[in-house]
């Protein structure tokens, strides 16, 4: 093959271009830290990276949902624990008050304490988290339990709303316990088992019906205690589920971050070495180019 000066020059230029383009590619990867910067770099990886990015962002949202659910349930749980404590104390008082040896004055002091406890119960039942009443169903802005009328009656102002929060893809959880869960059907009427037990106790203490105190009142209180225990175990189970969801969410995050990183991030050492190799190739082509372009027969003719 006949080789001309133009060919040499053109080949040198072309090779320099190719080398520079490769160097630029590595330099891009080094400065961005990404092995894929455009879909065409690797269409398959791109799609997977996009999917993983979405999953990671969504995972972050689910983590927020789980945290929110957990704090909601923690508030619920401590309120229920409070109710439990109150009911236990009320039970003691009921047994004490049922004793026939007490005077009317003694009973009056017990009534005072029961009233006090009713106030506590009211406060606990109206627990809120950031201004949202936890036992109010969907009506979280209004105080759910209100005393009305004479004789006093406790009225539930909330509704039966069950909050469904998504804690993982396709997994929703009912996080709230509303006032309806405190109620019970009694001869067609919805009755709040806790306030009902307290109000009944108060009334019977005042009237001194000791046989009712030891019988029906204790029965009502026990029913209320059973109810609160059931609710607590329900909440406990949910919190367990949430704890598990948290760790699954976290594991998923670690897995996916790793997977995405393996597709998306560069291997610094590898790229650096490649870059160095490319750099020396570039230098070599520069120096050979300089040498091969320069001389011609002209240089050797006198």
């Amino acid at each position, binding site marked *: 093959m006949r080789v001309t000066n133009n060919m040499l020059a053109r080949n040198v230029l072309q090779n320099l271009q190719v080398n520079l383009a490769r160097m630029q590619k590595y330099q891009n990867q080094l400065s961005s830290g990404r092995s894929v910067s*455009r*879909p*065409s*770099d690797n269409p398959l990886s791109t799609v997977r990276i996009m999917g993983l*990015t979405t999953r990671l*962002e969504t995972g972050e949202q689910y983590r927020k949902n789980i945290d929110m659910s957990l704090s909601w349930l923690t508030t619920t749980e401590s309120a229920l624990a409070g109710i439990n404590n109150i009911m236990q104390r009320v039970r003691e008082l009921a047994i004490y008050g049922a004793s026939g040896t007490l005077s009317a004055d003694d009973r009056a002091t017990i009534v005072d304490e029961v009233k006090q406890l009713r106030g506590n119960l009211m406060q606990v039942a109206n627990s809120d988290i950031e201004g949202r009443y936890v036992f109010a169903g969907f009506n979280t802005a209004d105080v759910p339990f209100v005393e009305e009328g004479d004789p006093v009656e406790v009225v539930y102002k909330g509704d039966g709303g069950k909050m469904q929060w998504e804690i993982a893809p396709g997994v929703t959880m009912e996080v709230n316990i509303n006032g309806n869960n405190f109620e019970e059907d009694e001869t067609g009427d919805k009755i709040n088992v806790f306030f009902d037990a307290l109000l009944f106790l108060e009334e019977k203490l005042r009237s001194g019906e000791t046989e009712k105190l030891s019988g029906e009142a204790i029965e009502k209180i026990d029913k209320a205690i059973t109810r609160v225990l059931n609710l607590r175990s329900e909440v406990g189970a949910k919190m367990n589920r949430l704890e598990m969801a948290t760790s699954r969410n976290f594991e998923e995050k670690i897995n996916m971050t790793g997977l995405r990183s393996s597709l998306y991030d560069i291997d610094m050492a590898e790229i650096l070495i490649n870059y160095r190799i490319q750099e020396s190739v570039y230098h070599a082509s520069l120096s050979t180019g300089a040498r091969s372009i320069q001389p011609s027969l002209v240089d050797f003719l006198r």
Partner: protein
Amino acid sequence: MRSIFSGLNTVVLAMQAQRKAADVTAHNIANAHTDGFSRQRAVMATTQPFSYAGAGQVGTGVIVKEIERARDGFLDYQVRCEKQLMGYWETRRDALEQIEILFMEPSETSFNSVMSSFFDAWQELSISPESSPVRTNLLETSNTLMNTVDHLNSQLDNLKMDTNETIRIKVNEINNIATQIANLNQQIVRITNRGDSPNDLMDRRDLLIDQLADIIDFTVVSNPNGSTNIIFRGRDLVRENTAYELTAEYSNGADVEIYWKKHPDQPVDIYRDESYTRRRDSLEGLFSVRVEIDKIKEDFNILVDSLVELINEQHGQGYDLEGNSGDDIESFFEWDDTLNRWKVNEVIINDVSKIAAALEDTEGNIGISNGLNALEIAKLRNVRLNFDGEKLEIPPAGESGHTTLETFYRDSVSALGVKSQESTRMVENQGALLTQLVNRRESLSGVSLDEEMANMILFLHAYDAAARMVTTIDSMLDTVINRMGVR
């Protein structure tokens, strides 16, 4: 018997021929770096010999018979074919790269991420539907989503406009080159008729044809009189000394179509059908790019329209913060006729409590912390949808669809990536092939300075020797004239 002076004549011819050859060498060296120049060679031939009776023939000298250029028509043909293909893939690569840059995938600011944030905002609303900041956050995220959609759409429109403009520019270039070729044809025919070989003009014409190959695919026909005809899409673009121009017009106000100026009734046949197996060129590349942009835009807007429809449909089922429902619920997104884009409903922009986050549950509760509708909307991202070619729809109950909103989008990004990757690879391959061919052509037609220098010395020595011959003949004549004869 020849005269003694005839030797002198031979020497003069020799000196003339060597000088001519040296001139050709000088011309070659001068044009060593001229684009499209092919090296020339003085072809020397002996003159008519003189017959001595009985002694055979004695030569009478040398003549430069012709100055030929080193050129291979077949190599030209090959180079042009590959240039045309190269143009096709380069055009596609450049445009597809631009589209890829528009979509910015994968990144944290791409449409993929914006859409993800949008659904996350609904998710957030399902947790705290009564919170005004959360509602406002959803509004802002939705605005960002639709702004991104609008931005991408207008960028794609711009790209298409650029493509149309490029087609017009290319058509002007074609006309320009065709006219120049026709002019050169005229000059070449005139010189050829005189019996000369217009090497430099032919080089210039070949260079123009090469440049034309960067734009279009055509057939070259050489005429016996030295002119060349160029046939483009079944019609003469150049015949003899006439160029038939093209014109690019916006047809129905949308896209540029190419017509023959003499036949403005029907567009020039540009093969847009992928199954049509033929050589491709840069012009066709531009038309194919236009098709790609349309396709990508169509897919993208199928996605956006379906998203809007699904969201609005579900949103309409819900209850707003005041407990309104049914006809009192505005659609979440609305079409803005003046700006020609989707946006969040003006009513919702002015009052975020109009977002219908609640959904009536089995007991009919719609309190302010009811985020069930927001949850339903957030769940739409994972719903497997049916694609009927026009929009994405929720499949009938009991059936499962084939794609989600997000995978539909990812599929189209992936298709774009594959196409762009293909064109980049083809450009690389084509480039390597073209380099080979251009090198082969250069090997034949290129000027080698070493060779020219060697030739120069050759001619110089021949010229020197001829000059010495003059001296010799001179002394012979001196002998005959001055020293012989009667004293």
